[in-house]
């Protein structure tokens, strides 16, 4: 039974990981927490569903389209809201609150279409299940693992192996110095938002398929937990975000079954607090070294 719990926890964890990466990326380049990430995750799931139900064409096509729209939404958040704040030299707090406002806008927009019902979601990656000992693993879970793995490798390649990725890392270390290199800092930031929105959208769709339903409140609670995962792993660190996500997922699952289900969220945050007490920068976070 422990194996089953572990598998469930890892599935949950890999979904968290994907969203946590988005938080980490944005925090890295902008030093703010993007509170809209949770609602963008939920939006992605809804967009895929709406497109699929409306147009009845190939699911994969609707999925791709939904991701494009999602990425665009992420882009808009930066381009039309946050960038202006940067130009006006507003404090980080103002940016933070703006992302919260953006989250509310997105949620209410979705509410217009679906009022408040929980809507069924077609599971397009259901190809049966198999057993490992006493544990049952569904194909959906396997596919989610693989997708997250592939995306992680892809993101790592982008961040550590491409010029754009180097620019992103430069901006996260010192935005002004990056400007002096001739790097288009605003462009890099926009790219980061698009990437994190696409990742969140993929997550939202996969979660919809996994649980075979979706509702518009799903953004909020997952937003908090994945933020915790990003902090746990060390904000700004890609492997940190993934590790953090997996840990939170597993702890939540095990805690829910072996201790108490009603307090499952508490366990996730308890782990976060414990880790931060001993490692203030998270598991993979680095101390900021500044020398005159």
């Amino acid at each position, binding site marked *: 039974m422990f194996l089953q*719990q572990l598998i469930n926890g890892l599935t949950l964890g890999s979904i968290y990981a994907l969203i946590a990466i988005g938080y980490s990326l944005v925090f890295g380049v902008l030093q703010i927490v993007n509170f809209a990430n949770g609602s963008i995750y939920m939006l992605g799931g809804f967009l895929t569903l709406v497109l699929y139900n409306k147009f009845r064409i190939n699911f994969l096509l609707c999925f791709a389209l939904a991701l494009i729209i999602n990425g665009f939404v992420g882009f808009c958040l930066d381009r039309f809201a946050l960038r202006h704040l940067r130009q006006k030299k507003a404090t980080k707090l103002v940016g933070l609150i703006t992302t919260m406002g953006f989250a509310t806008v997105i949620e209410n927009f979705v509410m217009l279409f679906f009022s*408040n019902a*929980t809507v069924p979601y077609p599971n397009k990656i259901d190809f049966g299940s198999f057993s490992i000992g006493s544990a*049952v693993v569904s194909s959906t879970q396997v596919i989610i693992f693989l997708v997250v793995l592939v995306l992680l490798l892809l993101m790592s390649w982008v961040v550590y192996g491409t010029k754009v990725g180097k620019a992103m890392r430069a901006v996260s270390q010192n935005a002004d110095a990056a400007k002096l290199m001739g790097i288009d800092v605003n462009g890099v930031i926009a790219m980061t938002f698009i990437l994190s929105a696409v990742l969140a959208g993929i997550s939202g769709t996969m979660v919809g398929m996994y649980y075979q339903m979706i509702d518009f409140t799903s953004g909020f609670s997952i937003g908090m937990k994945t933020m915790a995962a990003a902090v746990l792993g060390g904000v700004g660190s890609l492997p940190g975000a993934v590790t953090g996500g997996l840990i939170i997922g597993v702890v939540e*699952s095990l805690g829910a079954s072996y201790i108490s*289900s*009603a307090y499952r969220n508490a366990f996730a945050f308890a782990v976060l607090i414990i880790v931060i007490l001993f490692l203030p920068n998270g598991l993979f976070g680095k101390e900021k070294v500044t020398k005159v």
Partner: protein
Amino acid sequence: MKKLLSVLVALTMVLSLMAGCGSGGDEKKETSAPKQEADGSASDQGGSEKADAGTEAAPQEEGSQNYDKVKIASPIPLTGPNSQYGMAYKNALEMAVKQFNESGGLGGKEVELEILDDQSDVTQATNLANQIIDDKDVFAVVGTFGSSVGMATAPIYQSGGMPLIAPNISHQDFPQTGDLLVPISPTATIEINGVADTLFACTGEGSKMAILYATTDLGVNVNSILTEKWPELGGEIVYSNSFVSGETKDFSALLTEVIALEPDIIYTSGEYYDVASVILQARQLGVSEDVIFSGPGQCFTQEFLDLCGDQAYNGIYCGTLPAYFEDVITKENYSDTMVNFMTDYNNTYSEACNGFAGNCYDGIMLTLLAARKVGTDDPKALVEAIVSYEGYESVSTEHLFFSDYNYANKSLCAYTVKDGHFAKVEY
């Protein structure tokens, strides 16, 4: 924006109702309906004819009842998270009032319906309650959705001398909060005892039950009642754990344990999407095909079938409200009154008829019929007339009556799911 719109709509409705009142109420009537005499005797004292609701006989002593007040106030959630239920109430209220007015109203006078938006918010509902009890034209309140709003405003109505008929408040303490309070839903205790009896009748001696319950007052209550009653009947509780309704999406942690214990029944107390999630995820985890899934009346909706209809087979879902589907509410299964109600509702409104509408219709119709009988000037007399009303044909149950003064009792409806449709279970 939506809130503003609904306030404007409500305001417009109220204004047009008041305007109608002043000019003799011509706009409201489509067919000028004189008082109709029911078939057979005009007397309805202890009457046992199964006449259709709304076309009941005119009161015995005409002219002796006081119908000075003709307004019913209905605070319901038109906006906010419970707006879908508010809509069901609104439809039922309007339909009942229209039918009642067409059958003669209150001594020829038309009943006015004032619908207000409480947004399912306690503060808003409290404000409305305080306004309503000061309104000299209101003789009863039919409304409030949900225990939190209902329990918060009940004392206000009680101390304000205003009868409150609450269609779906099943909170234990509601009836005893005052003698002007009338729930149409049975309390959880009454309901769950009935559910336990029904489930036991279907599964037999030694049957093992696993309970998953939401951390709401209702869920906690259901769990404690079942945990006590089930062994008393002769069954065994093998597992009991809670979840946070709406927030907990992943039940796999709990279900893994449940499945390992090999229960005969898995009972989920929560919203329809919680029950659906449990069913879907249990099947994914390879639960035995023999396991019976059970859940409350909140499941009797198309949304539930949409979510898990093809996986919900081998279940017994019990509630105090029927599943308003055309293939379920048939003349073979239920009374003509129920069938007609559902047909009228579905023909009039775009939203599908459901238990909330049914309960609400019963609530207001019973109130109006009782008012016709005893007048609208004495709140206590009105409530007494409601709870002792004989011969009321309910649209939401086979048998509705009150015990211990104002505790509602209804016959249970039990369904299974076959080929993605509900089917009545005979036991």
